[in-house]
């Protein structure tokens, strides 16, 4: 099963303390300087929507956002363009992009140090229902890929996987590491 359109969301610590308004100028700044590998285009503000996409940096190949879907606030990378390579390559690309964005936001002075990865929880979605239906069969099919990837990401530390049950929803897995990792640690684990 080919995993395209991988979405990765890094859940943040103390979400109630994060104010999304300063993100708008921050994301506009990312466009001004085109700080990412992808072509960045515009900013969409959905703060008025309950448990919604938050503030979204629209790009051509991907979107970045600080997303509050399911009332779980996190830094999200949504890969829109198709990527060549293996499933490991695509998971790695998306996780790295999310981590890099999170690292940038953690260091952003306008956010006053309030936005930080919680160190343990990562959600992965596959944004393509036809290829990856949210079913047991899909879980079985992708399990080896996920195991291989998260073994490496967490350096062999234990972690748990939990899946959403609504068959209408995107195929999604919530990965929770048994110990905390910094964004820098995880980026290093990805490259080693």
């Amino acid at each position, binding site marked *: 099963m*080919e995993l*395209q*359109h991988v979405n990765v969301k890094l859940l943040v610590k103390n979400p109630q303390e994060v104010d999304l308004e300063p993100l*708008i*100028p921050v994301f*506009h700044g990312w*466009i*001004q300087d085109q700080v990412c590998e992808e*072509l960045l*285009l*515009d*900013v*969409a*503000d*959905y*703060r*008025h*929507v*309950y*448990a*919604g*996409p938050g503030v*979204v940096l*629209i790009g*051509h190949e991907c*979107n970045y956002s600080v997303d509050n*879907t*399911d009332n779980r606030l996190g830094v999200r990378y949504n890969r*829109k*363009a*198709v990527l060549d390579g293996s499933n490991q390559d695509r998971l790695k690309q998306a996780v790295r992009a999310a981590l890099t964005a999170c690292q940038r936001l953690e260091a952003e002075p306008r956010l006053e140090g309030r936005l930080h990865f919680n160190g343990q929880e990562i959600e992965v979605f596959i*944004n*393509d*229902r*036809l*290829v990856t239906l949210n079913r047991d069969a899909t879980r079985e099919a992708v399990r080896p890929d996920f195991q291989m990837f998260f073994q490496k990401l967490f350096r062999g530390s234990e972690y748990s996987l939990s899946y959403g049950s*609504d068959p*209408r*929803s*995107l195929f999604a897995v919530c990965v929770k590491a048994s110990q905390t990792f910094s964004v820098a640690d995880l980026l290093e684990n990805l490259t080693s």
Partner: protein
Amino acid sequence: MKASNSLWKEQLSAKMPESLAREIDIFETEVALRKQGKLDERLFAETRLRRGIYGQRYDNGQRHDGRKVQEIAYPSGKLTKGPNTMWDAPGMQRIKIPGGGLNAEQLETLADLAEEYSDGIAHVTTRQDFQLHYVHIDDTPTLMRRLAAANITTREACGNSVRNVTACPYAGVCPDEVFDVTPYSRALSRFLLGHPDCQNFGRKFKPAFSGCSQHACGLTNLHDLGLIAVKRSENGKEMRGFEMYVGGGLGAVPYQAKLFDPFVPPEELLPLAQAIARVFARHGEKKNRNRARIKFLIQDWGIEKFKEVVLEERKNLPPDPRWTDYLKDAEQFQEAPLRPGGEWPSWASEAFERWLRTNTRPQKQACYVVVTVALPLGDITANQLRSMADIVRRFTKETVRTTVEQNFVIRWVSQSDLPELYNALQFVGLGEPGAGTIIDIVTCPGTDTCKLGISSSRGLAAELRKRLAEKSFQFEEPVENLHIKISGCFNSCGQHHVADLGFYGVSRKIAGYAVPHFQVVLGGEWEHNGGSYGLPVAAIPSKNIPEVVARLTDRYAANRSSGESFKDFVKRIGKAELKAVLENLARPPADPSDRSFFSDWGDPREYTLGDLGTGECAGEVVSAIDFNLAAAEREVFEAQVAWENGRVEQAGKTAYQSMLHAAKALVKVEFPNISDDPDQVVSEFRTRYYDTQKFFDPFAGGKFANYLFDAHQKSKEPYTIDSSRYLIDEAQLFIDAAHSCNNRMGTPASI
């Protein structure tokens, strides 16, 4: 582009109606041909528009990032999907929902599409459609297939075609309706979709149905074709029919629809609509799209001649069984409830009580209510759409509709289910009170995504909503019931003309810099199907608009007479006095270092409509052209006051004079010795600003200049109540355009 696009066609082949499937195949071929350079970009643009695929802001490949204009390096390079429209630029997909009627499966489909092809949000429009933004053109055939499998089409959602047929969302359940218009609106929608007689219009054509004349829900007055249910007795038998109106429309200059026939029997509804379509296609303007709506044809001909030509055309139509096939079931049509009707809840919390008061209304069927789900700015998430599907399955037979106020209504809710339903809505963030009140603000997309947007209507709406919600517990009912509607530009997609407090985006120059503004439009009427249109009072910087709302609502609360509507209050107090209340808000900020005025709500970039003026912020220095345009603006306001006092001739003349003065202000920049002779002013303006296209709006072209030329040509003719009214609107738009032209020219302050 989605990896699975090529797989969906086969997957859905058995689920799509054949006609829709064929249509989408054709479009997919056209996409391929365009990519190979074998289809002209103009042709492709119209073909995609007729499938609901619209351009979005920055699709010309440029975006001002707050510091400079960035060229956007799209991977497909110079490939375009229309003139000056880059292939890879995100676009908007409009999805037609006739009468706003949906079922649970369709809600789920929309949820999936919002998630997979857009940014997770579906947006309800002011014409009961849905829009998805940031969609890539390569994904659209698949997106359409998935919609078609749920029996939804995007066909003719944009372009020069018959747009979504809207209808009162309370049709069939409203206690005040004459009869349920649902089967008739659906029949008209089906009949006109793809009809050969509707393929050669110069502009769009919007039909609407209402079950009564007194409420707002159908907004028939502002539609090209408006149909209001009526009954009359013939030989002791009660007959259904429609008051038929034609030629209404908002746009830059709003027109009230004219009565075409006080009683059209149902069997004549479809053939007459067809005859109107033929007449519009044959005689409507084609070259000048600014005068191509049917309202201009009716204005030019007069309603009597228009009617005569249509009735003649009607006689020549070959009979079509579809005209009447649907009628045998129409009178029996009725939705049914899922659960037995119950008692009104006996106990309620304060929050629940408030929600009951603003978000429910009784049905004509005892023990049932309609519940309104208020969507902030018309937005709903994919997860909320799925929850809506669950809720309408649980409590009703999937009887849900969208509204022109950008909300949902759930019909046939048993009263005894209200606490449970409220809890279910609350759980997913859809149980907010305030539907149809001052906090339930209607807005078009504005500068967020629309290419034509001048000011941030959504940014302003979000800010107003936040501030008003904080105060909403203090509002007395008359203030609470006011309607605020916002458009990002003069094109009225936010329906600002029929609001109590309407706003539309304009730009002005302050101290050499473009500053986002909104024209404040007062005196519109939402009831009576959009019974009357407001007029602009003053252009105010965007950042001062919340204070405008506060002052006007405070004044209304303090000074209204018992039972007085806001429209009547405005009329009694007078716009001159209300303008005075706002006067100091129109001025530049006292502190020139305060840069907040130079950016818009929700967008921190320094505001621009193109190139900014280059001068430093120069405090009190105001150019002569600014003074002259301000004088023109004063005159158009005087014209408005004269019109409201019944001095029609003076109103027309003053409006015309204001245009001349604005034109002269521009001419004077290049030709200081210009005289006051109207012929010379118009001639010089034409040579210097029209022929050179300096005055041209980036999207509307020479539309506003033509207002001056028309007014000049007709300046010796007497003014009527209608013509002077239109001229006032045109004069205001001409002056707004003169301001924009001045902004683009970056006129130095010394002139």
